[in-house]
């Protein structure tokens, strides 16, 4: 069975510092990978996705992620965070041929001034 692991439940960083949110998946077949963001009291919003092609994917709000097949990872990065990036971030995966998203447990990003 496929699974998604987000290695950190909470990540505190200072404003304007870089951040990396880690995501690993377990699958021996091709996968599609996603990062969603959930701001307080709002629904989830797609940040970026990897379907094929370049392993470096750029998303909204200055975020990017890199697909690493050998390490089965899809870590999310931003070079300089803002207070407005405070939110919960979810990594999700779809197995090739499958029909549904499977989400990780989420990482709460807290930005300190």
């Amino acid at each position, binding site marked *: 069975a496929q699974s*998604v692991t987000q290695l950190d*439940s909470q990540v505190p960083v200072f404003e304007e510092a870089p951040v990396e949110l880690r995501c690993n998946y377990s699958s021996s077949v091709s996968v*599609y990978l996603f990062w969603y963001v959930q701001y307080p*009291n*709002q*629904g*989830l*919003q*797609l940040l970026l*996705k990897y*379907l094929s092609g370049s392993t470096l994917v750029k998303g909204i709000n200055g975020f990017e992620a890199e697909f690493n097949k050998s390490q089965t990872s899809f870590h999310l990065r931003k070079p300089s965070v803002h207070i407005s990036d405070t939110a919960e971030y*979810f990594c*999700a995966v*779809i197995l090739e041929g*499958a*029909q*549904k*998203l499977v*989400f*990780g*447990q*989420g990482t709460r990003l807290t930005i300190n001034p």
Partner: protein
Amino acid sequence: EAGVAQSPRYKIIEKRQSVAFWCNPISGHATLYWYQQILGQGPKLLIQFQNNGVVDDSQLPKDRFSAERLKGVDSTLKIQPAKLEDSAVYLCASSVYSTPTYEQYFGPGTRLTVT
């Protein structure tokens, strides 16, 4: 473009009572999803509709949960009777197509507390 609408936003009920949640997807979106998000976990798919037909309900506890999407637009998710472990946020999402690689647009969710 209006987003996915859900109501109510919050609901508190006692165990063994029944409850219903409503979702109105983005206009023109054929696919509708209901997810359950328990505190500290990621969303889990309960049921997926394509127009008014069910595509996947493998994780829906059918002894107490039911969902319908009459006329292929609005949808209702019902729990009867509720248990303490049903306390969660229930998210509705919609998508243009059923292929899950297409972006899903999420509503704000309904937070259910069962006491």
